[in-house]
């Protein structure tokens, strides 16, 4: 028994060192990428890019389901995009609240007949509307399809431009998000087929988006939101930038996913078979492009493109993260043939095995590690001091990664003030005990849901606001000007 506990603990320790080591290696590449992108931005002439007729136009698709409180804020932030040409396609996915009424009132909609391209299947369309106020805005009202993928596919059928940008109906976007992304796509249009950016969280994103950097609070005052902020930072800056530079960006985030339309059409649109559509489509595109031997790049940029609402309650957070865990496992299981298969290049040989290790088996090893260590102490294999030293080491190991993420964020945006940086850094070592247990519980629930083959999408309740709906709350219509002035 003693030997089993001893070796069990060592295996778990080895696992954690492997994950930490790989994270540190990816972090080095991410830092490099961040530095390169920051310098590139300085050498770019954005004035020419934003006004040129050769800057590719983009179809922006915004699926919305029961988003009466947020959808207009999202749309206003999109309308403030500082970009040459784009159309906005809002898909009301059979909302049962007042989403459509809000859209009708705020956009001054009128119904019109339109014969779309039917490229991919989706639930039946009930009505097509155009805005009298903004000529490049259309609203498609459809029956509920049960998934964001269905609404996205509907939007794809109405999209006219070479690039499609899929957004969330409850997220607010930075005015320069599209320009920063398309800068890379336009520089290498043959190979850059997918792109995402850095997404941040806020309990009330409408108060922080679009405003000049020095006029806004870059982080919330609540601990739960701060920990989520740190987690997003690590995910987007420490990990995805490195993946992007190494050629295996495995998740183009659904809250901001830019794709070349022809590629999405070739692979058959977003899949409605999965709980969440973004990671699965990214896997499918990798698989498709590799299988057909076509050169391609899927990128992540360090610039912050959006702020999304962070769950303000632990229950809501657990529900959201459990769904993320479930969809990650669904995708990994569905694409298990790519694991270790040289045909799929780095994606199959490195990225997916790493994801299996960190996302798929992470929970198992974390639980096993904690269990064997506790058992080891009970049996006298280890002292309790060992346990404490081990935990504190893990906490500071995580904190090092967090500080590095804060550094990268600060270099790329300069949005923080010194006190924000100090607060985030100080929270780093506390994350293991104050936040990780919540995530572990969420991952456990997500894993159980995956094993039970559960599907479905449970939206978390919106954070409380003093007023239910304030369309002009952050002066979003002039956000583009403010951003350029900054």
């Amino acid at each position, binding site marked *: 028994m003693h030997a089993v506990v001893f070796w069990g603990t060592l295996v778990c320790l080895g696992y954690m060192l492997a994950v930490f080591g790989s994270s540190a290696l990816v972090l080095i590449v991410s830092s490099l990428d961040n530095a*390169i992108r920051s310098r590139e931005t300085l050498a770019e002439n954005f*004035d020419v890019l934003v006004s040129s007729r050769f800057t590719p136009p983009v179809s922006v698709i915004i699926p919305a389901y029961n988003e009466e409180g947020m959808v207009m804020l999202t749309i206003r932030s999109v309308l403030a995009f500082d970009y040459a040409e784009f159309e906005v396609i809002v898909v009301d996915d059979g909302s049962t609240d007042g989403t459509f009424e809000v859209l009708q009132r705020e956009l001054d909609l009128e119904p019109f*007949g*339109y014969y779309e391209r039917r490229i991919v299947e989706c639930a039946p369309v009930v009505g097509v509307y155009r805005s009298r106020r903004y000529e490049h805005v259309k609203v498609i009202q459809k029956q509920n399809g049960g998934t964001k993928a269905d609404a996205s596919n509907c939007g794809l059928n109405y999209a006219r431009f070479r690039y499609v940008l899929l957004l969330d109906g409850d997220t607010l976007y930075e005015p320069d998000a599209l320009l920063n992304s398309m800068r890379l796509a*336009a520089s290498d249009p043959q190979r850059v087929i997918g792109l995402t950016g850095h997404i941040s969280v806020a309990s009330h994103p409408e108060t922080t988006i679009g405003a000049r950097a020095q006029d806004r609070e870059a982080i919330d005052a609540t601990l739960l939101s701060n920990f989520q902020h740190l987690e997003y930072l690590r995910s987007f800056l420490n990990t995805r930038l490195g993946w992007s530079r190494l050629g295996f960006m495995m998740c183009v985030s659904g809250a901001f996913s830019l794709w070349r339309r022809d590629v999405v059409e070739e692979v058959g649109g977003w899949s409605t078979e999965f709980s969440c559509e973004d990671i699965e489509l990214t896997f499918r595109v990798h698989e498709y492009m590799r299988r057909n031997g076509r050169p391609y790049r899927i990128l992540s940029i360090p610039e912050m493109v959006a702020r999304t609402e962070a769950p303000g309650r632990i229950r809501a957070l657990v529900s959201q993260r459990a769904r993320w865990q479930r969809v990650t496992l669904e995708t990994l299981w569905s694409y298990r043939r790519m694991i270790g298969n040289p045909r799929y290049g780095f994606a199959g040989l490195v990225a997916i095995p790493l994801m299996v290790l960190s996302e798929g088996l992470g929970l198992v090893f974390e639980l096993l590690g904690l269990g064997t260590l506790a058992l080891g102490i009970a049996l006298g294999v280890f002292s309790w*001091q060992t346990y404490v030293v081990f935990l504190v080491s893990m906490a500071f190991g995580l904190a090092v990664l967090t*500080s590095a993420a804060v550094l990268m964020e*600060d270099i790329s945006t300069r949005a923080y003030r010194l006190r924000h940086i100090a607060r985030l850094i100080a929270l780093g070592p506390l994350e293991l005990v104050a936040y990780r247990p919540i995530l572990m519980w969420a991952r456990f629930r997500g894993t159980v849901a995956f094993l039970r083959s559960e599907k479905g999408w449970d939206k978390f309740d919106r954070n409380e606001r003093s007023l239910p709906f304030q369309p002009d709350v952050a002066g979003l219509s002039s956000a583009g000007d403010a951003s350029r002035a900054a």
Partner: protein
Amino acid sequence: MNPWLSSYTVALGALVLVWVGVSAYVILTRALFDLKGLSFHTARRVLDRRLARGASVPEALAGLPRRTLAGIAADASTPRPIAEAAARRLLERRRGRIVNQARSHRSDTDKWRRLAALRILSLAGSSIAKPELARALRDSDPDVVGGAVSILGSRSDLESAAMLVDALREGRYARSRIAAHLDAFPRPLTDLLRPLLEDPDPANRQWAATLLGRYPDPETELELATLIVDDDPQVRASTLKSLARTKSRLAGPAAVAALADPVWFVRVHAARALGRLGQVDRASDLVTLLADEQWWVRTAAKESLQELGTDVAPAVLPALRSDDRFVRDGVAEVLQNIGFVDELIRRLEHAPHDELALRVLRSIFQNGGAAVAGAAVKRSAAAGASRAATLLDGLGQ
């Protein structure tokens, strides 16, 4: 002491030290950044005060530190004459170093210094700028080439434009990005671009045809027109686009001929050209495209018909009796989008027994598909046209 514990403690200590080090670095770099920003803004205020007091630009820049001068030169919000003067002063102070940096780079960090040096040389109007920019355009690093393209695009002399045209011809950087700079160039580039129309590479002919669309000039248009029969469909499409843009008299016949082009996107551009030219007498040609097998061509035809305005109604109405469903749907959509359907509804609201209006609406609704009819019913109801809405409801069914 447990040896395991001691080794763990060492590891823990090391980790804590790493964390403290990284965190201190984060805070220090940010504090330094803020400090630099503060000193830069102070210097800018000094400069503004001196200029307000009537000092000449060189006098106002006198005594400012090198980093501030570099910041002023690089800052996009700096007025061009001040940025140029700051660059000249910098060059006076550190000529050897800047020239060396502009010449080549050894590492990734050097690469960005090289671009900064090239920008200073260019702003200062140095004679070395052009040869060094030409060298940068030939560099194997795409970032350096992209930076050089951007700097050349910010200049206004024809020699810089010629360098950009060479870069375009040789495909040294994304052609669309080079073209964007040439398209924004403040001086006419006809003489530089025309030779590209005969280039063996179709990509060059395409971009030359596209860029020449800025210059309405009969001689250029004649040369462009020869590309209407080019072997490459992209070239044909770009030529149509440019001829329509300059409203050339050759555009109409060229577009009509291209309506039957075997390649769908050429037909798209032919349809758009006719719309842009505003030739209502060509509406019937566009109606034939409503039966095209490609959705994109049908949509371009619809949009062009809409662009022609309400005058196309008499030309498109007979097509409601077409055998082709796409044509009927397309015509109904066009009539809806030019406001013809709503105009008929308004007439019916005032005169419910207007037989002509009823007959035409019935034809649109019965032949033109459910989407247009359904939307019209909703629109009329929303507009409070109750009598018309009742009538339309019956028609729609």
